[in-house]
């Protein structure tokens, strides 16, 4: 045990002296995510404002009644072109005009879904068309002496009573498991390769192999280090992400914050996690951190160079990215067998925890299967590390 800790301490000391790595670990998440979301927020807000004030050119076919234009919403910024320089269809395809309205029995708004301006113009024209239709219906009802309530006997209102925390939890519950898994595995790749293949490249592995530490102790010491740094890397990235998204939520996710704002609790983005949930989250993460670390040490010990190590680890990373994507696009009812697939179950259990739907049975199954998988991979890693052909591969 002493030698395991000694190796861990040495690895950590070397890590703390690497300024570039420290910069990547501590500064990047804190600067990168706020900066990224700030830029995204800035541009999405700029685009929305631009769309609001942009005047769209539309063509109304002669069949469209002239009074239709009276129903354009205020500030709709729609300019109806009286004369055209070419065929309306060609002009629309070239986005010279943003929409065409025709009328036979029904009204048709033609637009290009591939163009944001065209989509926005079509939305405004649809509102106009609904207003126009309502006005026609109201006039008809008046003619026959019926009140407007004859066709609208009651109003329909949707009221979201989800708390801010639930709305935020729903959003983060989808994205965080994905992020955590990806961060753990990409973190493991960087630090684990440095601690395994890096030793080969620098010629320090032979020094370690002839030391009094057994090969199992070397593997376990390195494993402890990679897990610790993975955690640090993952947690700092997630914190940076959550803080940044919280700060920029109103500009990036206006719908979500609006919904949250409709509740009595007030407006804004709120992500909170109970200490016990946080603890359970860490318990869920630990086995997959071990899986990632032992996988990378096994691969890193086999690889002759960092490049080879990265190449060999990439398929595994892709699998875990896929797992993350599955968790983001989860079916409405998650099949029970998902909770028996290691790593996939971690993702869904994290989701349950973050969205206040915690189920102990799922949690337990997840812990048991992922811990078992981690134990098997660690055993394989130790077995591999004990093989001399791994260290002196030609």
């Amino acid at each position, binding site marked *: 045990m*002493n*030698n395991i800790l*000694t*190796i861990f301490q*040495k690895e950590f*000391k*070397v890590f703390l*002296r*690497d300024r570039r790595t420290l910069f990547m670990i501590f500064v990047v998440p804190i600067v990168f995510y706020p900066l990224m979301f700030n830029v995204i927020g800035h541009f999405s807000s700029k685009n929305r404002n631009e769309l609001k004030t942009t005047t769209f050119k539309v063509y109304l076919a002669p069949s469209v009644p002239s009074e239709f234009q009276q129903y354009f919403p205020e500030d709709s910024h729609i300019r109806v072109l009286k004369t055209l320089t070419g065929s309306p269809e060609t002009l629309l395809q070239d986005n010279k005009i943003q929409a065409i309205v025709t009328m036979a029995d029904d009204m048709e708004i033609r637009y290009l879904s591939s163009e944001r301006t065209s989509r926005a113009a079509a939305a405004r024209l649809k509102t106009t068309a609904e207003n126009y239709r309502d006005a026609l219906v109201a006039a008809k009802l008046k003619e026959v002496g019926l009140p407007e309530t004859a066709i609208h006997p009651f109003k329909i209102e949707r009221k979201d009573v989800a708390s801010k925390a639930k709305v935020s939890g729903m959003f983060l519950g989808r994205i965080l498991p994905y992020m955590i898994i990806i961060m753990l595995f990409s973190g493991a790749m960087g630090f684990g390769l440095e601690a395994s293949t890096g030793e080969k490249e*620098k*010629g*320090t592995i*032979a*020094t370690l*192999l*002839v*030391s*009094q*530490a*057994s090969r199992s102790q070397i593997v376990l010491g390195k494993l402890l280090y990679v897990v610790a740094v993975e955690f640090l890397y993952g947690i700092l990235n997630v914190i940076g992400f959550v803080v940044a998204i919280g700060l920029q939520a109103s500009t990036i996710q206006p719908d979500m914050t609006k919904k949250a704002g409709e509740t009595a609790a007030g407006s804004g983005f709120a992500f909170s996690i109970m200490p016990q949930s946080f603890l359970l989250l860490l318990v869920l993460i630990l086995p997959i951190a071990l899986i990632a670390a032992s996988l990378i040490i096994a691969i890193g010990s086999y690889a002759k160079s960092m490049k080879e190590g990265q190449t060999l680890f990439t398929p595994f990373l892709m699998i875990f990215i896929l797992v993350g994507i599955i968790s983001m696009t989860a079916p409405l009812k998650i099949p029970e067998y998902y909770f028996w697939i290691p790593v996939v179950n971690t993702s869904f259990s994290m989701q349950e925890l973050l969205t206040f739907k915690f189920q102990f049975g799922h949690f337990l199954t997840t812990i048991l299967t992922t811990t078992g998988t981690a134990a098997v991979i660690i055993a394989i890693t130790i077995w591999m590390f004990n093989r*001399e*052909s791994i*260290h*002196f591969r*030609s």
Partner: protein
Amino acid sequence: MIEAKDLKKLFKSRGKAVEALKGISFTAEDGEIFGLLGPNGAGKTTTLRILSTMLTPTSGTAVVEGHDILKEPDEIRRKIGFLSTETGLYDRLTPDDTLKFFGKLAGMESSDISKRADYLFDRLDLKKDRKRLISGFSSGMKQKVSIARALVHDPSVIVFDEPTNGLDVLTAKTVTDFLKEMRNEGKTVIISTHILSVVEKICDRFVIIDTGRIVAEGTLAELLEKYSATELEDVFFKLVPERRDA
């Protein structure tokens, strides 16, 4: 004492079997510097890797200080100090950190590591650099730190693979003087080299290895007499004719 008994080693590379050692036997006594002399690829490093338990022989065995390399590898690693061109150092550690790390792995107390470090750094003229990061060291200084690292646990058997390789004359002399000093302390010193002058200067006995076999064994005087030669170079080229470029 080291006793190598018919060591054989077969490597498999891309489906091909390469016999690196074809039955090597020798004995290196306490209080002597024993040399393995041979051209590149002769099997010297493989032999030393086997003695240091980094590799296991395909057949045969060796006994180091009474411990069999196959049965008690952990015990052997406590007894030997191994250094080779492959045993690199951690750039982001200082010489002090390095000795603390390997001393702790050897199960030494901090106070003992400290005393041993003082002695080794003083002896190897590294006192003023012991707290500097190794990344800024010259290759000669790195070699001195490597020697200190290999000897931190005061091993009774010293196994150095090409200890003067790539060193300037002054550093090479420090290393060879240090090896002689350890021999005089009664330790078993075994080195490998392809530099004939190193063997002439410091080895009490040596073997010449070529293509995985020992082709000659004895003291310098014995071999000069046996092969009617005046210089080791003549003996070497008689025994390793096809490898004159080594």
